[in-house]
């Protein structure tokens, strides 16, 4: 594999809440530019812990997370904040990701920095929402619309990697399909890279290019999306 194409590299990541019992054990993988890599596993297998460690919310016991060959776990201060903007998370429950008292315009402006309302409109349009959403509060939006706002919020920082942690679990099937199509189109249009973390067979089958199977904190198998579909589609 050509290393020029690699955007995120996770090396021997070991994470746990105690040194003796790590939840994630020696996990290593590569994410290529423009690729959607899925980490698929049962509830409690350690998927979200990997995401939290990459995002810097949990300090790993051991291991490295390299973004464009820079170990982002070692960087501190302003540089760390800058580099963090290039990896954006999208979580399961959009209600918990947005400030309940802030209007959508303010939420997006906070992420963009000092830019005008025109940019806010552009980001809303990118996720299929119009300018009428700018003055609304999160409580006035449906779950699917809120998740779109979260995607727009993530895009505002011009990220290179999106970490999608169970992005559709709280959504009904129709909304899930619409959001999956949106994410697929955004990936293709802007050459984004996704680390998709989910236990949902449909989401993995639809969005991913490559799949890592995680069981009890260890990667047990790596397969292509085609191989995954062949193996799991009957379980849907």
């Amino acid at each position: 594999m050509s290393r020029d194409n690699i955007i995120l590299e996770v090396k021997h990541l070991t994470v746990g809440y105690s040194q003796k019992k790590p939840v994630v054990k020696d996990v290593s993988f590569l994410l290529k530019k423009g690729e959607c890599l899925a980490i698929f596993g049962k509830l409690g297998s350690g998927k979200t812990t990997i995401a939290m460690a990459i995002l810097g919310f949990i300090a790993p016991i051991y291991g490295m997370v390299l973004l464009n060959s820079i170990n982002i776990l070692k960087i501190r201060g302003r540089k760390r904040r800058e580099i963090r903007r290039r990896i954006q998370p999208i979580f399961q429950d959009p209600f918990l990701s947005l400030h309940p008292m802030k209007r959508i315009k303010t939420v997006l402006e906070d992420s963009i920095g000092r830019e005008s309302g025109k940019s806010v409109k552009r980001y809303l349009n990118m996720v299929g929402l119009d300018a009428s959403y700018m003055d609304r509060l999160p409580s006035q939006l449906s779950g699917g619309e809120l998740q779109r706002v979260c995607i727009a919020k993530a895009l505002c920082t011009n990220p290179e990697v999106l970490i999608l942690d169970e992005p559709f679990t709280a959504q009904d099937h129709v909304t899930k399909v619409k959001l999956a199509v949106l994410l697929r189109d955004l990936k293709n249009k802007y050459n984004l890279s996704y680390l998709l973390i989910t236990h949902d067979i449909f989401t993995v089958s639809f969005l991913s290019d490559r799949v890592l199977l995680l069981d009890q904190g260890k990667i047990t198998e790596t397969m292509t999306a085609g191989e995954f579909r062949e193996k799991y589609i009957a379980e849907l």
Partner: protein
Amino acid sequence: MPNYKLELKNLTVTALPAKKILVKNVSLGVAEEGVTAILGQSGSGKTTICLSVLGLLPQGLDITGEILLRRGKSSLDILRMKEGELHELRGKKVAITFQEPRRYMNPIIKCGEQLMDLVDGSRKEKLQKAIELLETVRFERPMVIFNKYPFELSGGQAQKFSLALALSKKPAILLADEPTTGLDYESKKELAMIYNDQIEKNGLSIFLVTHDVYFAHRIADFVGVIFNGYLLEFGSKKEIFSDPFHPYTKQLIEATSLDRLFSMGNELWDYNFSLRSDGCIFSRSCKYSMPECFKNEPPEYRTEERMVRCFLFSRG
């Protein structure tokens, strides 16, 4: 028509004083030892129907129609029951499991104690029954769950434990409100097996409210499709999935086909909830809309085991 254990006839729920219709003229049934699933998007009125069966809807709602619970040859109308009678019904004849089960458990009492509170007998008998219930819902190590607090359970364990609570009084009907939300595929498979066990061994009838099309396909015998409070189609699972009549049902089932989705460009359907026309509730989102659809509400076209609410059906 099959022998329904629970039957809803023209159930209409309206929010007062604005007279906002939440559920309109819903008629369907849950067969003896069968599963009836209601499929629909979030906010389409599924949970409202489910809660109305147990008389759990908040005040300020106008509820009309009939909810008939069959007992032998006679039937009781749940909507005409007094609070005391409803109290006797809840949990004992009709039980419910909720989407977020932990919210309905006592957070400061261990799971085993909560189960023991619900069963009868001496303390030793209660203990035995509680463990049996935990085994019924396929906990491999029931004593481990017995000694846990609700917050210590995972999503799948909480859903199974709430099912054990619901089954404690041996109900005839189980209302399952979004039981698969947040569960992984193995937990869903296990839940389906538990439901099948209960249907076979105890003759349980299940009214499943879900947006999980795959789960409904896996366990249901009858399927109803609801959109914005209106039941658009009802029939046997086989007919609904193999030959859907209503355009919305067709789209919903198309959305489960990966091959179809892979070939889709930006032609994804967009549902318009906010603009209600005088006619069909789905007319503004339907690609087959005719002038008639915007003027009149389509009636229910019924065959022996099938109902569809669409003018297209009148034209064959």
